[in-house]
């Protein structure tokens, strides 16, 4: 028996370090890794479920080919590689390599993923997507304002005396942050939570506000306006480090508390209470979530909220700060997000013309050449991308779909060939995080079960079969030694010892414990930019943070939000029995005072619909949710009952090439 240090590669704030016990090539235990201070108490429930995931009887462990009747049959790797080779060769001969669409998601992070691009480049370059589903509007808003996306070490939030959770629910999405928040509360800090739901993170808050969807900017600007009016701002900080304060102050003079109260549908008294708490706090940490920036006004919303810590001087000191994203551990990337999301950031051999927010329409509209083949890995677009019905149409138009997956997701079900994919324990790689500051390694601990092959091996086999291999047996790192050598050399370039990393995670020397403590801001002016010429130039939005109403489709009565829950990372984990035992079916929540008049009882089956689609599912009452708002967790598969993106809308956020898929309205009726 042996313990291994590893790290979770999911698209998650926490990116936990943890330890795995293996016995005779089988994983038998999961335990905490205290040397990662950010996640010292051990992984969350999803991390604990990895044993169930790796050895799940429903895991795909053989290549599968869909037959004429639409049934999947196991085939050998030789056959799978031959079929794919023929398809690729044939398609390239007829239409050119750009008729192949390579779509990779955030399912498993690691630097070996980059070898896919090497393969597709050698093939002549294929079509890629730009933009991102997740967080670009907020990243871009933060970049335009502060110059960089970084924040203090996660545990520094314990030193705050006011923490504002603005649209973030760490108890479910970043539980390790909650540990530090509870420590802060135990030391006397106050917590304000702003969310349409009474989240699991809000139970110990001093104040809770529920603004209407898409109106957070109005609330933020009214608060800033009042703070400026009463002089409760840090003038020295503003004079030294902030550009455009005066014009900002002028531009929000009309943003009174009453104005915001009406727009946001929040009592005036609650806004006043929030201002009181802010005025009486010295060290404020603002923790925004990602949900509220997936609206058409998302970037401006984030810029508006960001004005509060800026004008009160809560940047660059312990206990303060803006916890949007901490990209300091992304040391292996030449171009960081959000700039990397731009369509023009692209090797010229590739065609990067499909936008993530409008993926379905863009796929359908590609021409010279049209799309013929899609290769999808680490992604489940049929549940996670907006407007599923339209995307299904786009998939219908394709000749051939190859999906690399661990389970038969909705996307895998649409494939012609499913390639069994490795789990995090079956190939070593490096894990960076956007919250904790560590560089971590996930080690190979077990051999892949059945006939699972790693992606680098699959690409090597294909390269060989197609004739790209230049005489090498493996074009990419495949064997354990090749992988170790590759990772070791990448790490040593950054001054990190691979073998040390196997014992404990490391913080790279470039990482600042207190972000911006040097007051150097990587903006055009070198200052914090409330006034941003770049915002106007790049995105054609106001130079100043501004509340821009979202366009509501008032044919439908309810806004619907799609929060992330503690037992899923997007569409991952929900299929595991150890998770679904406690959360078996999708449920839409709404306020009883909205639902009783529609004759919908607690537990009724309902139809939720709009012009884009409909879903049938169970409805439960939530007595604290914002009236006029429904909530269905993100990540349910269509095959599990109901996916939120059957209803969601394609469209861009105001900046960053993000998807405004939360601009979503529906109606609900009893079945």
């Amino acid at each position, binding site marked *: 028996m042996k313990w291994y240090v590893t790290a979770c590669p999911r698209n998650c704030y926490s990116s936990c370090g943890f330890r795995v016990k293996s016995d005779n090539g089988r994983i038998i*235990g999961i335990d905490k890794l205290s040397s990662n201070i950010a996640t010292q108490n051990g992984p969350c429930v999803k991390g604990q479920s990895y044993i169930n995931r790796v050895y799940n009887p429903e895991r795909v462990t053989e290549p599968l080919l869909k037959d004429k009747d639409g049934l999947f049959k196991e085939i050998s790797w030789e056959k799978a590689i031959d079929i794919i080779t023929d398809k690729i060769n044939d398609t390239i001969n007829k239409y050119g390599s750009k008729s192949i669409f390579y779509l990779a998601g955030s399912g498993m992070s690691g630097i070996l993923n980059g070898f896919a691009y090497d393969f597709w480049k050698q093939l002549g370059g294929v079509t890629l997507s730009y933009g991102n589903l997740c967080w670009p509007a907020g990243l871009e808003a933060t970049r335009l304002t502060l110059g960089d996306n970084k924040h203090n070490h996660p545990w520094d939030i314990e030193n705050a005396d006011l923490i504002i959770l603005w649209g973030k629910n760490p108890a479910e999405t970043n539980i390790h942050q909650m540990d530090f928040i509870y420590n802060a509360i135990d030391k006397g800090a106050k917590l304000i939570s702003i969310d349409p739901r009474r989240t699991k993170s809000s139970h110990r808050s001093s104040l809770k506000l529920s603004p209407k969807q898409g109106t957070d900017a109005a609330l933020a600007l009214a608060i800033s306006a009042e703070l400026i009016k009463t002089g409760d701002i840090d003038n020295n900080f503003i004079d030294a480090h902030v550009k455009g304060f005066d014009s900002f102050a002028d531009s929000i003079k009309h943003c009174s508390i009453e104005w915001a109260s009406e727009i946001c549908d929040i009592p005036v008294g609650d806004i006043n209470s929030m201002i009181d708490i802010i005025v009486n706090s010295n060290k404020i940490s603002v923790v925004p979530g990602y949900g509220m920036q997936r609206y058409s006004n998302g970037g401006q919303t984030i810029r508006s909220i960001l004005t509060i810590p800026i004008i009160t001087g809560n940047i660059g000191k312990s206990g303060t700060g803006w916890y949007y994203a901490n990209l300091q551990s992304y040391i292996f990337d030449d171009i960081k997000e959000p700039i990397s999301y731009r369509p023009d950031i692209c090797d010229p051999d590739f065609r990067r013309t499909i936008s993530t927010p409008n993926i379905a329409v863009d796929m359908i509209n590609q021409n010279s050449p049209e799309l013929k083949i899609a290769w999808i890995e680490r992604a489940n677009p049929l549940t996670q991308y907006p407007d599923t019905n339209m995307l299904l149409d786009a998939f219908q138009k394709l000749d051939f779909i190859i999906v690399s997956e661990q389970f038969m997701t909705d996307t895998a079900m649409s494939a012609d060939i499913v390639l069994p994919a490795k789990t995090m324990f079956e190939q070593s790689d490096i894990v960076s995080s956007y919250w904790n500051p560590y560089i971590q390694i996930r080690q190979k601990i077990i051999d892949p079960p059945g006939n699972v092959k790693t992606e680098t091996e699959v690409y090597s086999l294909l390269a060989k079969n197609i004739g790209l291999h230049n005489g090498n047996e493996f074009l990419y790192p495949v064997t354990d030694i090749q992988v170790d050598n590759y990772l070791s050399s990448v790490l040593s370039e950054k001054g990190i010892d691979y073998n040390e990393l196997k014992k404990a995670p490391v913080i790279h020397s470039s990482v600042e414990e207190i972000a911006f403590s040097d007051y150097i801001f990587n903006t055009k002016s070198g200052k914090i930019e409330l006034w941003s010429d770049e915002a106007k130039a790049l995105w054609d939005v106001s130079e100043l943070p501004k509340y821009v109403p979202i366009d509501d489709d008032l044919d439908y009565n309810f806004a619907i939000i799609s929060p992330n829950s503690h037992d899923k990372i997007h569409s991952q984990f929900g299929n595991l029995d150890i998770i679904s*035992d406690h959360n078996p079916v999708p449920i839409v929540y709404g306020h009883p005072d909205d639902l009783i008049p529609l004759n919908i009882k*607690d537990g009724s089956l309902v139809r939720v619909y709009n012009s884009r689609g409909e879903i049938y599912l169970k409805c439960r009452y939530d*007595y604290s949710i914002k009236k006029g708002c429904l909530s269905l967790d993100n990540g349910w598969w269509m095959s599990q009952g109901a996916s939120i993106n059957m209803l969601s809308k394609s469209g861009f956020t105001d900046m960053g090439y993000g998807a405004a898929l939360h601009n979503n309205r529906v109606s609900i009726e009893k079945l």
Partner: protein
Amino acid sequence: MDRQFIFDTNRCAGCRACVVACANKNNNANNNYWRKVSEYNSNNHPLFPVFYISMACNHCDTHPCLTNCPAKAYSIDSNGAVIHDSEKCIGCRYCTWICPYNAPVFNGKTAVVSKCTSCTDNLFESGNPACTEACPLSALTYSTCNSKKDTMSGVTGNKAKPNIKFSEFKTRHTIGNDVSKRANRAFIDSILKRGNKLKEEIPLLVFTVLFIVIVAATIFNTLANNNITKSYNNMHLFGAGIITMLISFLHLGKKQRSFRAILNLKQSWLSREILLSGLFTGLLFITYFITNIIADIITVSVGITLIISIDMVYLRINNKINMLIKAGSASFITIIITAIIISNTISTAIISSLASVIITIDIIRNYKINSKALFRTISILSILACNIIENNYTIILLITFTIIERAWFYYTLPVLSTQELLNKNLLKESNKMFVY
């Protein structure tokens, strides 16, 4: 116990990492989880706080599971942990009813119970249970704790003396009430939803009702010895007893181990009930051949003790005396049936009227809780009907409604659990706060 669970309600976020860690370590997934997370106010009513309690076995000092197990499947290990031995378990599920925290879990596949061992064979260097090692918020820990026992009202303040301590509950923000009266009524209804035990307990229902009838008939036989022609004899009753006992076997998970059911006569009313039912049935056989007043008296006495033991088995679950004076009570119904069989109009009238009054009071008292009191109302009417109609159908009618009442009893039998304790508290608070 040297060490015990310490739970900080202020830190728990209800994430269930503890539940899955326990399943990883002890292989109890697939809905046989030993550890459960209960939620207070899971529907988020704005007037009440929301919090979570993670609990498995608290290895109670008085361990009612061990005391009441008929098969002696429970023991105490050297650390003071209450350990269940699946090899000795007969799968009667009595411990799952009697534990205040619903800690023992019956597994349909293995047909026996299993429960938390406090990870006596831990994988971890710390020697702590897997659940406590896994809590991302340090809400659940395991240690020696000599300080004053912190309690949580309604959860720890019971006779079982559980080995769990709670950190002092810090007041939580509630967010004011903008919920309509109509929605508040729906809220009360949602708290009241209960588990339905009826389906899986049909063998027990049949067992109880048949023995009530058999004992009543035996009493009648004995009393009516000389002046009424017997339409049935003790051999008929013996046959009925044997069938009844066979049916009760169906309830056991491990039928081949049924002999273990009488190992705990010293402490378990269930063991006594099982032994008495066997003894009683045997005596019916003997008294068929031996017509002897002493033998008859012994048989009737054993029968009455059996009926009392049946009630004691259920009384132990709830410790509430009003369980005895319901139509669902075996002793009570036996008395009424006996009275009717004897056809003593006056005694029937007195007893059944008394019964009606008691049951009516009970229903009025609990009406809010049991809004579906229809069954109860029908059973009163049936008992009252016995006063008016005097013929053989009365008994059939009465037995029918005894079955219904008894079924309702199983249907509403509270599954004691932490969630149930929290729900009760929430219901009490709601009734205080809501204005209708």
